[in-house]
């Protein structure tokens, strides 16, 4: 913590320099660990279960929903990239 003296006007200015980031951004960043865990789990299942993989490739959002996942845009986007890697491997 700064030991420099602050007048109250300056304190107000400094407090005003840090508005909150949009709530949705913060929430998405906080959900990252769980999103990564889900992503790994789905990719692993797609690797082992050919039928699931076909369903994912045909309609990703529907396949995720029927498997009990919430197809959030970030998850779908990351999953598409990982499935493409899996396909090219």
């Amino acid at each position, binding site marked *: 913590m700064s030991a420099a003296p*602050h007048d109250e006007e300056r304190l*107000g200015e400094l407090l005003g320099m*840090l508005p909150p980031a949009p709530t949705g*951004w913060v929430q*998405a960043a906080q959900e990252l660990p769980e999103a*990564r865990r889900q992503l790994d789990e789905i990719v692993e299942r797609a690797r082992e279960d050919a039928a699931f993989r076909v369903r994912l490739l045909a309609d990703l959002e529907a396949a995720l929903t029927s498997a009990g996942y919430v197809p959030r845009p970030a998850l779908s986007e990351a999953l598409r990239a990982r499935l493409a890697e899996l396909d090219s491997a």
Partner: protein
Amino acid sequence: MTIELTDAQLVERCRAGEQEAWNELVERFSRYVYAIAVRGFRLSENDAEDVFQDVFARTFERLESLRDDTAIRPWLAQMTRNACVDRLRAGTREQPTEEPLADEVDGEIERLDEALDVHEGLQGLPPNCREVLDRFFARDESYRVIGEALDLPAGTIASRISRCLGKLREKLEGRKPSPDPSGG
């Protein structure tokens, strides 16, 4: 998290996979990362959002490589700075934009460091002071909005802000605030 952890303790708990610690880390530094992107580099909201998510994703992936846990703040600042520069350069390929000078960015990050110190100082104030100062200065809310949200007469907000600023100043200067029976 009920007990205020140091940055180093927070990093250690994040490494151990504690979701609550990760939530706190994101919460603690979200304003700082956001401000570097929008104030330091003047990114648009869309670009700032990409940078914001990218910085926390990299933080999550690379926390193991942080050598000094107490240095999480400068580490984040550097990562945000790099992500902003990458974003601006990628954008320049499509539409020429002016990149802020390195000295300007250094100066702004220095001011944001000072701002974050002050913001952290808020944590040592009573909750009603924290809220009124944050709402007025950081969220730019009017006396009327604050009064409605906190169920206080709008006419008392200005004096409350002044009293709470005094407490914050005393806190930052390491003096013990004088007792205030009203608590705010």
